[in-house]
């Protein structure tokens, strides 16, 4: 499956999220300086950068973990502030953290529904409706093309790629507006990574959820994203659209070091640097 299968994002697609002029410092450490990103409905955006570039801080501001020192978040046309991860989730912003937040001692289907369980009443007792959760989980994982030995197996026993897939499936089950994936490929082998990328590609094809991917390395995700934002020392230094930029061009720009001069040159070349 290549990016050519999927048409470029419609430039008229509404902007679902704007994070404008976000700055954040932690004590003496400046994490973000005047960072702005925007995300269209159904778009897949990759945030790329080295350790300490500010990717995680930006995402944790979006998901309600941190509050920005300055800047605004416009979400679905309205200015919002998320004070907790719960609140962000309630507004349709789901985050799959690097640790995946899977419960190793529970089965796949319990993991899918933990925190939003289905119940049935038996003899006046409010018990878990395990059959319903098992059936729903199996059907949902099937629609996503996620293959696991059984929804009854403990997530502990799954491979890294399967665990990542289950975590993603859990997050999109509630039909979020925005899905944030923090380093979805970090702990995965090539084949497992390809499986997770296939999952993202499927979501992208449907264009129903907007996705922000945090990655170290853009070439892992070049085919599955519509735009790549490079972060360097707390700033977005380059905003490249994958339909207008070739991977070879990006390699050249990135190899030149993402310094001021390189960005100026890149801007001249691809015409959309920030």
């Amino acid at each position, binding site marked *: 499956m290549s990016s050519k299968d999927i048409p470029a994002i419609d430039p008229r697609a509404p902007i679902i999220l704007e994070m404008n002029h976000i700055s954040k410092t932690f004590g003496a450490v400046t994490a973000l300086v005047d960072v702005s990103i925007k995300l269209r409905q159904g778009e897949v955006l990759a945030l790329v950068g080295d350790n300490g570039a500010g990717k995680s801080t930006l995402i944790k501001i979006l998901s309600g973990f941190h509050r920005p020192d300055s800047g605004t978040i416009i979400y679905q046309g309205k200015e919002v502030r998320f004070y907790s*991860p719960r609140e962000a989730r309630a507004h349709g912003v789901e985050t799959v953290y690097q640790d995946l937040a899977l419960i190793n001692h*529970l089965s796949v289907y319990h993991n899918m529904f*933990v925190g939003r369980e289905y119940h049935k009443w038996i003899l006046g007792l409010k018990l*878990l409706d395990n059959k319903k959760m098992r059936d729903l989980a199996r059907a949902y994982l099937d629609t996503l093309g996620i*293959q696991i030995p059984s929804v009854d197996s403990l997530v502990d026993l799954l491979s890294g790629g399967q665990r990542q897939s289950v975590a993603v499936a859990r997050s999109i089950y509630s039909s979020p507006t925005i899905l944030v994936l923090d380093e979805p490929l970090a702990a995965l082998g090539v084949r497992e990574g*390809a499986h997770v990328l296939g999952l993202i590609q499927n979501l992208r094809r449907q264009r129903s959820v907007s996705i922000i991917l945090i990655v170290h390395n853009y070439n892992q995700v070049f085919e599955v994203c519509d735009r790549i934002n490079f972060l360097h020392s707390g700033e977005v230094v380059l905003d490249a659209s994958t339909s207008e930029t070739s991977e070879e061009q990006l390699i050249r720009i990135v190899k030149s070091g993402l310094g001021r001069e390189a960005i100026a040159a890149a801007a001249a070349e691809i015409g959309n640097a920030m």
Partner: protein
Amino acid sequence: MARTTPTSQQVRKVGIKAPEGGFEKVLMVLSRYREASIAVVAVVLVIYFQISNPAFLSSQELSVVLRDTARFGMIAVAQVMLMITGEIDLSVGSTFSLAPYVMVLMTISWGVPLAISALAGILLGVLIGLINGLITVRFRVPSLITTVGTLFLLQGVVVSIYNSQPIVAPVQEPFNAIFGENLYSPTDSLWSWHGLTAFSPFLWTVAVVLAMALVLNRTTFGLHTIATGSNIIGAKEIGIRTDRIKIYNFMIAGGLAAAAGVINTVEFASADPLAGGPFLTLQAVAAAVIGGTSLLGGSGTPIGALVGAFVVATLNNGLVMMGAQATVSDIYLGAAIVLAMILNVQVDRMRARRRI
């Protein structure tokens, strides 16, 4: 440059590896059916003691063993729930002494009916659990330390109330007959009402164990209890109120320890300030661990705890029946705890390495 999606064949290669050696297969079975493996141990012990002394399975002796099982088991099952959340309550031995002491004093001094003062005693246990939980969760004190503190504190309180004197417990039927008094004599049929009372503490414990097994495996509270102990950060990220889950389990532990104490006092018709104490706590922990509950959090079984309690009680009584010194049974008990713990940790480590 096109990246291919994995075919189903490729996907099948990732995932669960089949266990390779016979040893791994045994560990896999153990990890699935921990109750079963400890039940095998229990049956072997019973057969051994029955062969050594044919009186072992007499109804009298069985009643004694099952009464001990009941005492350890009710506290052990509460401990299991708490250990699944990754915490422990060592103060249960003191709650076990304090609650019935308060119950008996209320009835004797103020003429409160036993049923009411028993309820008050159990609520006191729940309150102690709440305090243990709040200290542990709010002040981030490890529960091992919190509850060692309350263990001594409450033991000191109960001893100082009445100069460490046991008090004869009042008898108010049918309360006493229902909650532990033994009316059975050798002339009674085992299947009569009197025969039933010989086993009532055990039956109460079985009821509690089954209830807790239902709560753990079939309710949202149980699911969240497992999630809290298995991955507390992840549980918080998916919105589980882990602090509350822990506090509720501390309250359950306190309440059940108090209930076990009440039954014990009715059984012996005496409220003894030294009935519980640290040793009882540790025997209950031993029962939970032998029954297959991990101290690492995330897994545990109430039914295993009951079987573990039976193993502890059988070791204690069986060895004494064989003429061994009471202290000798501690050697076996100690060895059993260490062996069970080695097995539990190994099974968990194998799972962590995804080898089974």
